[in-house]
């Protein structure tokens, strides 16, 4: 971007006034059909080659998916994830060059309940998705978002695996695979019997009306679209990871493209998610431990994907989301998207510049040591960015928030983490001291019902919770895990005098609680 004058000046002044007969830059024979970036136009054939190569190269380069491994593709029905599904399908084909060798499965999460769709409408969408998935022959799981209410609290606890040197084990796995399986190659169609069983199990499920209502209640408690999108993203991730675990997959493939990630990068900064930027936008996301989320589409722009789908008839289903038909300023995510996309029109390197910047980011402290693992956010499962010293920007934000609220509500001090112990964070901060004390009393009667939810969350997830009028409708698995963690820290606090080290993370306590 710093070379803006040199690179773009000529380009801005003279819009590409080329004729329709421009030749492809690669083969120099056929008429070009699309412009990838200024000065790079390709014909249909070369575009396809380029597209397919990119996908295999992305997976080959990263060496994260082992041959024969079970990989769950998260397909939303949108163009990006359907292009991903199409690439996997083609890559597994018999005559594919640089054949992919993993075992794919597909998961779709139906979020129709949040848009207030009728049961008929939802079933129609699910039927469309189902027929799309059936054509692939892969095992598939169609899951309503309501299932998130039935998740076990263990979802929120990353599972640590003993890992050796990844590069070495990849090579071993490949060798092993080559020796063992020239006969029964990983043709997904072999799993027919398994497949039929799965599809039966995941039939457009009988969703209890009550669960739909609970979920709707939960989202109606969220005041802003920004927070709604964030919460939905969190719940969706939990459901995906849990599905991968119960169905025995070890990788989760997400269809986020380059444009999407550039938007996410900027939006996340605006949302206060700076500490998690690297892990949120990288190719490989190890935060769940045993299930690794990968983003093979991260090298494609949204334009490439849409054009590919159109030109090569890749089927996809348009499914409305929370953002559909909303104005630019309805949420931070939406506004960032429109900002990036608008800038991209005049400066075609915008998206790739943001995206390349994201690639250079790294998390400061990645401790793989299980015993000393830092605390994780209850929602996004990233390392908590709130356990900082007194001189941190986070503390400064808290203090300035406190001070600016002094005039209006005296009890804003309850926001401070150390005073929160008085009463559960969910208690309305607008209320006066009496209420807080009253609640503290009743809290002690009710026992575990109230808790310091906020102290268990990272800065950004705290903001999301603050945008909720009440947390009573949060899924049970989140609440029980929060209680468990609170209890644990309480016990740790009580016995802290007897601990030999100052470090509260002593293993013996972990085992006890």
């Amino acid at each position: 971007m710093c070379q803006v004058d040199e690179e773009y000046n000529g380009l801005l002044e003279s819009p590409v006034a080329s004729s329709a007969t421009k030749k492809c830059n690669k083969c120099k024979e056929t008429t070009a059909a699309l412009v990838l970036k200024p000065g790079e136009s390709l014909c249909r054939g070369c575009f396809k080659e380029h597209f397919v190569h990119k996908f295999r190269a992305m997976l080959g380069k990263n060496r994260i998916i082992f041959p024969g491994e079970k990989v769950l593709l998260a397909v939303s029905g949108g163009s990006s994830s359907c292009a991903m599904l199409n690439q996997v399908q083609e890559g597994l084909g018999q005559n594919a060059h640089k054949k992919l060798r993993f075992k794919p499965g597909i998961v779709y999460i139906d979020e129709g309940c949040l848009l207030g769709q009728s049961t008929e409408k939802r079933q129609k969408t699910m039927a469309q998705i189902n027929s799309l998935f059936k054509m692939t022959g892969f095992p598939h799981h169609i899951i309503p978002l309501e299932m998130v209410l039935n998740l076990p609290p263990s979802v929120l606890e990353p599972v640590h695996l003993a890992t050796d040197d990844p590069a070495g084990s990849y090579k071993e796995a490949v060798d092993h695979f080559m020796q063992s399986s020239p006969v029964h190659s990983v043709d997904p169609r072999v799993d027919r019997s398994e497949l039929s069983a799965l599809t039966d199990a995941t039939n457009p499920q009988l969703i209890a009306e009550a669960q739909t209502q609970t979920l709707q209640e939960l989202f109606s408690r969220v005041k802003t679209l920004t927070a709604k999108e964030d919460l939905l993203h969190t719940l969706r991730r939990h459901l995906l990871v849990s599905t991968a675990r119960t169905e025995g997959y070890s990788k989760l493939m997400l269809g986020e493209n380059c444009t999407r990630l550039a938007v996410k990068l900027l939006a996340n900064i605006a949302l206060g998610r700076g500490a998690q930027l690297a892990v949120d936008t990288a190719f490989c996301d190890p935060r769940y431990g045993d299930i690794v989320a990968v983003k093979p589409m991260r090298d494609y722009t949204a334009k490439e994907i849409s054009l590919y789908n159109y030109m090569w008839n890749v089927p996809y289903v348009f499914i409305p989301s929370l953002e559909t038909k909303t104005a630019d300023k309805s949420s931070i995510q939406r506004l960032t998207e429109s900002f990036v996309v608008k800038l991209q029109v005049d400066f075609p390197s915008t998206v790739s510049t943001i995206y390349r910047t994201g690639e250079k980011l790294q998390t400061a402290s990645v401790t793989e040591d299980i015993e000393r693992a830092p605390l994780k956010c209850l929602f996004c499962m990233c390392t908590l960015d709130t356990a900082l010293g007194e001189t941190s920007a986070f503390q400064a934000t808290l203090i300035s928030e406190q001070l600016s609220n002094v005039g209006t509500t005296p009890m804003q001090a309850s926001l401070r983490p150390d005073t929160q112990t008085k009463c559960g964070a969910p208690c309305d901060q607008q209320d006066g001291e009496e209420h807080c004390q009253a609640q503290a009393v009743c809290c002690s009667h009710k026992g575990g019902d109230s808790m310091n939810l906020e102290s268990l969350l990272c800065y950004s997830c705290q903001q999301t919770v603050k945008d909720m009028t009440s947390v009573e409708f949060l899924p049970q698995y989140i609440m029980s895990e929060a209680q468990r963690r609170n209890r644990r820290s309480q016990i740790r606090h009580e016995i802290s005098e007897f601990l030999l080290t100052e470090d509260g993370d002593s293993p013996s306590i972990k085992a006890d609680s």
Partner: protein
Amino acid sequence: LAAAALWDVLGILLGGAELLFDGVKEHHVTLPSQSEPWNMKQLLVWIGQNLLKERPELFVQGDDVRPGILVLINDADWELMGQLDYELQDKDNVVFISTLHGG
């Protein structure tokens, strides 16, 4: 050439852009005759006045198409065809694809 006063154009909307047009994806359109050939700029205005059902700002912004919506003319990227200045021919096929999240 001047005799061919009518231009038949097939418009296709994809990726969620169809939602602003009552969910109809394919539009066979006969443009009214005018002395000069129709160009894309005029077509956008005409679409805005005649076909768009709601929230025009989500499809057209200024006299250009909303950023994030791709345009293909006869299956080729309109950036190769001169974009807004492209002069429509009879039986042209124009495709609008929304790449935006949520359509």
